[in-house]
């Protein structure tokens, strides 16, 4: 019996090596240099690793699945095409991608066609739909990164929502809220420090 188990031992080693190769992980530097040399396997890894995190940022901003899908697609294509412009001295790869995702989401939110399609929706849907209106609109605004805001105090939450998820500048927020610019700045910074403490 000992003799017949002889080749099986090698199969065990073989499958272990294959699983190691399949689970290959890249350091951030390796990943960036592979992406810069247009390595599609590395891009595949990038997608598997970060698509969920980025979608969790896009969705609460865009607040609509169809638009969020378009943005995610655009974001990943931008990452692929503009990887040379990533500067490691300014921060981590994820931070760079996160900002691309947020900016693209806010761009869509601000675009005229998107706003028009959104304005039209409530008009047709509020006609006597009553409570159904709220049901039909899935609450995508409080998922992903936006979840963290739930723990903030009301006034802080409003400021972060306006600044981060709606993309208003501090000046615009000061105007909307009727507060001095300095107060807005300080409150936002304090709210961000609070948020950080809620993170793991």
């Amino acid at each position, binding site marked *: 019996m000992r*003799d017949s188990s*002889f*080749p099986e031992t*090698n199969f065990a*080693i*073989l499958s272990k*090596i294959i699983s*190691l*190769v399949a689970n*290959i992980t890249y350091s951030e530097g*390796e990943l960036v*240099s*592979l992406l810069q*040399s*247009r390595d*599609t396997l*590395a*891009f*595949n890894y990038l*997608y598997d690793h970060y*698509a*969920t995190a*980025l*979608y*969790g*940022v896009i*969705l609460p901003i865009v607040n609509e699945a169809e638009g*969020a*899908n378009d943005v*995610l*697609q655009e974001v990943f*294509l931008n990452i*692929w*095409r503009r990887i040379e412009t990533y500067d490691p*001295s*300014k*921060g*981590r790869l*994820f*931070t760079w991608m*996160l*900002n691309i995702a947020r*900016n693209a989401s806010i761009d869509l939110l601000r675009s005229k066609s998107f706003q028009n399609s959104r304005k039209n929706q409530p008009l047709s849907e509020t006609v006597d739909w009553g409570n159904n209106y709220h049901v039909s609109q899935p609450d995508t605004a409080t*998922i*992903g*990164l936006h*979840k*963290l805001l739930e723990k903030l105090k009301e006034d802080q939450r409003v400021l972060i929502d306006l*600044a*981060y998820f709606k993309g208003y500048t*501090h000046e615009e927020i000061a105007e909307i809220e009727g507060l001095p610019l300095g107060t807005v700045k300080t409150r*936002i*910074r*304090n709210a*961000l*420090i609070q*948020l*950080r403490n809620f*993170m*793991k």
Partner: protein
Amino acid sequence: MNIQEYISSGIIETYVLGLASAEEAEEFERMCGAHAEVRNARDLFEQQLERNAIAVGVQPPRKLKSLILSEVEIDAQKHAPRKSIIEPEKTERIPVIRITPAFWKYAAAASIILLVASTILNFYFFNQYKKTNELYSQLLSSNNRLAREFKIMQAKADNYAAAMDMTNDSNMAVVKLPGVPEHSANRATVYWDKRSKDVYLFVNNLPAPPAGKQYQLWAIVNGQPVDAGMINWESGNMKAPIKNITFANAFAITLEKEGGSSTPTPNAMYVFGNT
């Protein structure tokens, strides 16, 4: 404002999340360049943010991945020449051997190839081993068979040697039992030890007894047949000693039922000879 105060002012979070104004960002980048503490603190928050974003992430629809990958694939083919232009230049400038993931890919591929080759060799040797093992057990069984046959032959040879000894013994009376007219081809010989009176029988030529039958030796004493013992057919030609007979005029062999009869069956006599 000292460095620690600057770090804990919220500027790190504001900058990393993309909420800093142009002037704030410019100043922060300058501070990062000048102070490792600021850089490290920024990196710490970035890692925290990344972990958190992954933890609270939302799975995008599955179809999106293949859509995006196919667009990237097309894009990669369009820009393929760029790769080949950039790379040789890079390798010329950096003569150091760099261990990249590609190296590990090749290393893994090479080790898999080696492993497959070794597996094939193992199979080959294992088969060779099995063949040799089979041959060995065949040889072993034929050797055993030869040993068994040799033992039988030796027993036969011993038997013949004993018979030879008896014929050469001057104290041994030899009584030849030729075949009766119905069995003229058959023959047997009785060796009768004059000292011990033991009777031995040598079967020169008798047909094998049919199933359920056995040859029986008789001593004829004063015209009466006396049982001189049953002949064990299996024990070689020399049957010894059958019985102790003090006096006999003649000896005869008949074919009887297994175990023998008290009187010989008429017409069943094969051989007969006077002393």
